[in-house]
């Protein structure tokens, strides 16, 4: 009976199953994407999904930091940029430098810098931490602009080679698509493991009440730094992939607006929900094209609305507000509840059995 109890479902038990299935989903997308006529959704799905996957690397890590450890960062575009510039510089300056090594270097350096700045900055709390990270992001952006000899200044770095590993060259969006999304899923697996583990509990405890967590023997200050480093590394990885995807980097891709986009993805998707990051990314990636497609779906729209660049952002802002008003815990949370609903009967059934067994104790 103890065994039975020891196997009781905890908050994340459903995740591995979901991960397996969603992986299958995502890897299938390119197949059916080819059959969506361009005039229904005015985007190149594979291309857009590669970028989404790249952002997902950042957001999944950021969710660990914000959603689980409860430490905000408004400067993650900086780590995204550090990853991108590191591999870009290595692969363009050193002829024939293996790109995959560049990606690793980007990830590592980003993590290292995360440690350097995280150690002092994470002593700050709440909005002050937000401000400090925001400041770091701005400083990084200015350095990207000013260190011409290294970063090519505002012009940036051109002719970045495509990613290649074990003799394979990932030079098309489709090839890159699979690399990126397999990486994303690997990161997801890592995060799920982490959240289920001792460390994950420590982080969630720290989020819930730092004092209580401390008192229960969780070394919160160290955990904060470690999870910050982890999220920085994820961001760096995303950035490195970005560099090889766009084959060109310049500071404009690492501005404050991008940091804010990352955090928005986390919150809209669902803080502290392992799927939140992923869902947030997909949602905010596909919202604009959907909005853009609206006029053809409802031709009744006034002509002023027809010019997409005029109303797209208006609607985007509105929807952002509405999402938060009606799904304040994030979309993932809503979906989760929907999924639970299908399980309720099963659970009830199971619980009654368990209860019986326990009475016989």
């Amino acid at each position, binding site marked *: 009976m103890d065994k039975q109890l020891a196997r009781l479902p905890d908050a994340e038990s459903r995740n591995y199953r979901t991960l397996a299935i969603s992986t299958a989903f995502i890897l299938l997308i390119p197949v059916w994407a080819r059959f969506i006529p361009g005039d229904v959704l005015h985007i190149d799905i594979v291309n857009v999904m590669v970028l989404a996957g790249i952002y997902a690397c950042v957001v999944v890590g950021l969710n660990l930091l*914000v959603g689980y450890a409860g430490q*905000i960062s408004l400067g993650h575009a900086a780590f995204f940029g550090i990853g991108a510039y590191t591999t870009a510089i290595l692969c363009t300056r050193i002829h024939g430098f293996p790109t995959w090594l560049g990606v690793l270097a980007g990830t590592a350096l980003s993590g290292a810098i995360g440690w350097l700045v995280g150690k*002092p*900055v994470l*002593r*700050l*709390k*709440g*909005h*002050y931490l*937000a*401000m*400090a990270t*925001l*400041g*770091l992001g*701005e*400083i990084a952006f*200015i*350095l990207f*602009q*000013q260190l011409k000899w290294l970063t090519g200044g505002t012009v940036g770095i051109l002719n970045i080679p495509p990613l290649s590993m074990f003799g394979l060259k990932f030079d098309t969006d489709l090839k890159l698509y699979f690399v990126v999304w397999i990486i994303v899923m690997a990161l997801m697996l890592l995060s799920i493991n982490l959240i289920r583990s001792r460390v994950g509990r420590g982080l969630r405890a720290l989020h819930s009440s730092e*004092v*209580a967590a401390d008192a229960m023997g969780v070394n919160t200050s160290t955990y904060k730094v470690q999870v910050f480093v982890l999220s920085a590394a994820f961001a760096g990885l995303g950035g490195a992939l970005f560099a090889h995807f766009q084959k060109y980097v310049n500071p404009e891709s690492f501005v*404050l*607006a991008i940091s*804010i986009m990352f*955090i*928005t993805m986390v*919150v*809209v998707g669902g*803080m502290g929900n392992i799927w939140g990051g992923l869902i947030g990314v997909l949602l905010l990636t596909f919202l604009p094209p959907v909005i853009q497609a609206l006029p053809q779906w409802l031709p009744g729209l006034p002509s002023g609305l027809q010019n997409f660049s*005029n*109303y*797209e*952002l*208006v609607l*985007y*802002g*509105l*929807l*952002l*507000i509405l999402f*938060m*008003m009606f799904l*304040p*815990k994030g979309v993932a949370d809503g979906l989760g509840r929907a999924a639970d609903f299908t399980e309720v009967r099963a659970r009830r059934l199971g619980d009654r059995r368990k209860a019986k067994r326990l009475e016989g104790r």
Partner: protein
Amino acid sequence: MGDRNQVRLLWGAAALVAVVVVFTLIYKGSTGLQWILSGLTVGSIYALVAMGFSVIYSSTRVINFAQGEFTMLGGMMMFTLCTRGGLPLWLGFLLTVGIVTLLGAGFERAAIHPLKDQSVITVIIVTIGLAIFIRALAKWIWGTDPVKVASFTGDKPLRFFGASIVPQSLWVFGLTLIAVVLVFAFFNRTLLGKGMRAAADNPDAASLVGVSASTSSLVAWSIAAAVGAAAGAVIAPINFAAYDAGAMLGLKGFSAAVLGGLGSAPGAVVGGLMLGVLEMITAGFAPSGYKDAVAFLILILVLLIRPQGLLGKPADVKV
């Protein structure tokens, strides 16, 4: 950290700034004075935006990322009403403040009030949504070109000790002074204001004072919008109003508010002026490309020494 250390630190910071300023003056003479004057002008702009942040924070603990947009709207309204509509300045100013205040209050009721039980970060994202929304709307209405609003009292620069300053700066100084006095008085002298501060610290206490969190939030947003709009209206002649001006103002305003200590109106002013002066002095001495970097670096350092900003209350470690 004991109170004594706090005070010592404050004096330390003040002394440091003083030293920098004096050094600049001695070393650069009238040029230095010029930098400081410009710094004070820019600083008061930051201070006015920062005050908006502080008001909302001190009564709801929310950071309103749309604060800069209120200021932008202020400028744009002035343009429409006075420059285009030809209304007298005072009327245009009042209308501007009135309209934007209504917008602020309206938004609070529509989107913030329903979220009263939600986590602060959720509300913050809503304000980000609002910022995007307002900016896009403004672009739609006013287009992308920056617009010009005539100075209230001409452009003839006033010069003294070899430095010069445009008359409009005096208006900005004036408004900053009035705003900080009013806001401070409101939060420390009036029952409602005190109640609102209490409301933020702990809702139960507030209900004793007879101020519901709901009223508190509504009033805070109205005040913030009003201050923001007034700021926008007065600074429009100095920094050309444009649909996308809000982002920068918001960023600098937030920085100033944090530097001075969130939730303290005087802090907002101190933070704003410090930030402005530091920026301008750095721009003067250092390669100007780095001036913002230096400003942010100093900001972060200040926070590391004093995690609650210069005039902020220390976050209490309560179990």
